[in-house]
């Protein structure tokens, strides 16, 4: 799953650690989500979307299914 977390964070001028503090997760978790290594749980995904005032599908973009 792709996401826009890095660009949204950059728009706010926050560091990964600052965003982590706002979401109550570690900097490593933010880094792993941004790099697409880890897909967050649904509650965390909603929390992220709410923090940036977006809908969840505007932040997280599912991969296209193989045809």
């Amino acid at each position: 799953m792709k996401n826009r977390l890095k660009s949204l964070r950059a728009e706010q001028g926050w560091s990964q650690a600052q965003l982590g503090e706002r979401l109550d997760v570690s900097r490593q978790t933010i880094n792993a989500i941004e790099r697409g290594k880890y897909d967050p749980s649904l509650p965390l995904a909603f929390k992220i979307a709410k923090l940036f005032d977006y809908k969840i599908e505007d932040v997280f973009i599912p991969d296209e299914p193989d045809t």
Partner: protein
Amino acid sequence: MERVHSKEEEKKNMITTSITWASVGLLNAYAFGFSLVIGLLGGALFGAATGFRVSRRPPKMRFPWYLFRQIMNAVTFFVLTSAIYAYFLDETLNQSQKFWATIPPMLGIIVLIITVGRAIASLDELQRRIQTEAIALAFAGTAIFVGVYALFQFAGLDEVNIGVVFIVMALMWLLTKMWTMWKYR
């Protein structure tokens, strides 16, 4: 683990790790027959240095400091109960008394497991996943080690102390944790 912001936290960490390592030093002094004072002081100094280092440069896995200190206290409790067990085994006790002597370290292990469990539960979702994957891999790795060693044992290798299994499991946990942390980098 959050970075230390106050000298107060650093001091508390240093005192806790000093006590833990002093107890480890004491147990080693008793087990290997060197001076108890040297064991105690050497352990305390090493513990203070460890506490200082960990406070200044915390590892990536983020436990709140109070849980870090609780783990250290649980280790101290486990080490001291093991020392009591070792002392009683050296005494001339009958079989039933020896069984009773196994209760203190058992309590120590239970306290240690509960404390580590609480610390893992305090982590965020990715870190919990890393720990869970690491523990599962360590468990599987230890099972393979024990199985393979059993085959070697049938072929004539010496019997291994059960304590070695725990050391292998702990080492595997450490290695697999490093690997899973690297995987999610």
